[in-house]
């Protein structure tokens, strides 16, 4: 779908509701990506309800501006490390949603051959080195990927996205300190969505949070409205530029809200429905759409993003449902080069 403007095309740039130098095409693309992420996850939720996703999946609905704003600013040879809530990041980094959906269903052709599932989604062909089932673990791994870049001498960077709950584990301190000490090209992004599973994250967090912690570890840090694609995009772009030009690691705190339960099966009864309703008003996709509408983009094209994305993901889901299980011999492959994994078993 190409970018098309409506009648109000020109004047709009003078309107105060959109930022100066607003790059319509850029946000049109973000809008499209956010819709694809949303559609992927809604479809995954359906698959979950259909009983076809077998392990736990964690939806990032409401957090798409971070995924799109961060990962679309990465190059293919940049590394990305993500979390258990990583579908959006992975998609925005350029992974193929078909192989992702196959993975969620544990089918043949899944990006991890059906061996990983949602929490271990990865696509090395686009620099996506993995979600992780262990909260915070990817912070050190991302620092290390940045270390490899420094040692090998490249212009690429490493990016790690993690939740607000992850800042309470040791690797947050150790990984940020590491990146700071070795002046590594690493972008740390914290998605402050208010929850860590069923717990209000702030209740278990002492001090002001991730930004201040990062600063205390010598990492320049900024905070943005993570539901505002423009804020996210600009902040990320600027920081990546600085990192690439040798500026060392950076940290961005993105404020957002987890609109769904912790997992796709969690009704999240531990919070007030009115808070959730309130948060929906701040939906990053609607906000982006309003912005683009104000910038004169045709509403039908914006709606098209949604419908196209939904049919794309539906088709993907349909194909995934038809796919066979992985071949059984895979169970014994890729364990390691030495030794017979079957020794003394059964």
């Amino acid at each position, binding site marked *: 779908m190409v970018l098309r403007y409506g009648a109000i095309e020109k004047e709009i740039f003078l309107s105060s509701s959109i930022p100066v130098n607003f790059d319509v095409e850029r946000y049109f693309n973000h809008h499209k990506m956010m819709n694809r992420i949303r559609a992927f996850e809604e479809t995954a939720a359906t698959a979950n309800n259909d009983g076809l996703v077998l392990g736990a999946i964690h939806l990032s609905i409401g957090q798409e501006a971070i995924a799109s704003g961060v990962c679309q600013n990465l190059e293919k040879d940049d590394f990305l490390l993500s979390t258990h809530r990583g579908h959006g990041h992975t998609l925005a980094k350029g992974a193929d949603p078909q192989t992702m959906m196959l993975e969620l269903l544990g089918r043949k052709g899944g990006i991890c051959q059906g*061996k990983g599932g949602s929490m271990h989604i990865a696509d090395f062909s686009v620099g996506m080195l993995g979600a992780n089932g262990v909260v915070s673990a990817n912070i050190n791994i991302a620092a290390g990927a940045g270390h490899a870049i420094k040692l090998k001498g490249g212009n690429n960077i490493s990016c790690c996205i993690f939740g607000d709950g992850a800042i309470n584990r040791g690797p947050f301190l150790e990984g940020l300190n590491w990146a700071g000490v070795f002046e590594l090209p690493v972008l740390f992004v914290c998605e402050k969505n208010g929850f860590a599973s069923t717990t209000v994250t702030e209740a278990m967090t002492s001090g002001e949070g991730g930004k201040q912690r990062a600063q205390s570890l010598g990492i320049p840090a900024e905070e943005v409205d993570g539901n505002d694609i423009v804020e996210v995009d600009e902040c990320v772009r600027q920081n990546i530029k600085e990192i690439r030009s040798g500026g060392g690691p950076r940290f961005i705190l993105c404020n957002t809200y987890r609109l769904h339960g912790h997992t796709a099966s969690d009704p999240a009864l531990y919070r007030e429905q009115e808070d959730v309703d309130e948060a929906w008003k701040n939906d990053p996709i609607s906000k982006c759409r309003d912005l683009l509408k104000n910038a004169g983009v045709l509403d039908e094209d914006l709606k098209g993003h949604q419908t196209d994305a939904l049919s794309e993901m539906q088709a993907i889901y349909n194909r995934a449902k038809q796919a066979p299980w992985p071949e059984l011999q895979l169970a014994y492959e890729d364990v390691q080069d030495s030794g017979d994994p079957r020794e003394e078993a059964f």
Partner: protein
Amino acid sequence: MTVMTYADAAKAALAEEMRRDPLVWAVGEDLGRGGVFGQYKGLVEEFGPDRISDAPISEAAIMGASVGAAMAGTRPVVEMRFADFALCAVDELVNQAAKARYMLGGQTNVPMVIREPMGIWRSSAAQHSQSLESWYTHIPGLVVVVPSTPADNKGLLKSAIRSDDPVVYLEHKNIWGVEGDVPDEDILLPFGKARIEREGADISIVSWSAQLHVASEAAENLQKKGISAEVIDLRTLWPWDKEAVFSSVEKTGRLLITHESVAVGGFGAEIAATVSEHMFKALKHPVRRCAAPRVPISYAPPLEDMVRVTANNIVDVATTMMDSGN
């Protein structure tokens, strides 16, 4: 007696101990909302958030702070959520909790229970499925408990809470919902006392935790083939009930050990080595293990199943053992 699930039996045990002893408290992520498997459901209402305490995602602090709290006179029950996450707190458990009493010359005890839900559970994949009970048996200072039934989960958890030493308490995620009769009274099961799940004459099958149920199923099937299997539930791996196993092997002359965890370096090897040494003459057939290949756990069910030790596997091995007995 009340019919209860494995999860509820543990909850009853914890509640009883918390009522009895105000120094008992539990701590872990999301406990205030009942814990990730509902095994703490309703407890915060009775005991309040100080004693059914939420925690930040800080496994090292959950474990380490509990070590300190135990040394300073309380009795923490530590919830690790998934046994795999306990790997974020191994220094705290192995270098601190397990060694403190000895290393400080008996000046302190470290009375704490570390609950680690373990095992394969519906496509949870490699980082949420592991069983490392054999690791803990290798560490001086630790008690290792692996209950398989609701009644045992009550009686053993109560004993674990009263233990003055750190107890690694491994509940299996796949049997949270299994129901069974649970005594209503203050039942305290001793460590190191096995349970004969089923008597038999031809072969002894030793197991624990969820795999015990697989062993029982195998024994049923063996019965149909005319093979009478005695099934022994070890209940605790340190200490483990050598005597029970020895006297069963004395009777049957054949021993098969089955566990869900990896065979290589698994606790089955310890039992096999011990029995092969001490019961050499009584053995009509070499001791056999029936345990998992040395492979991480996959996500896709057919691949996950490939590393699962099934009743069929056990029946096959047991049958060969009968055929080729010398």
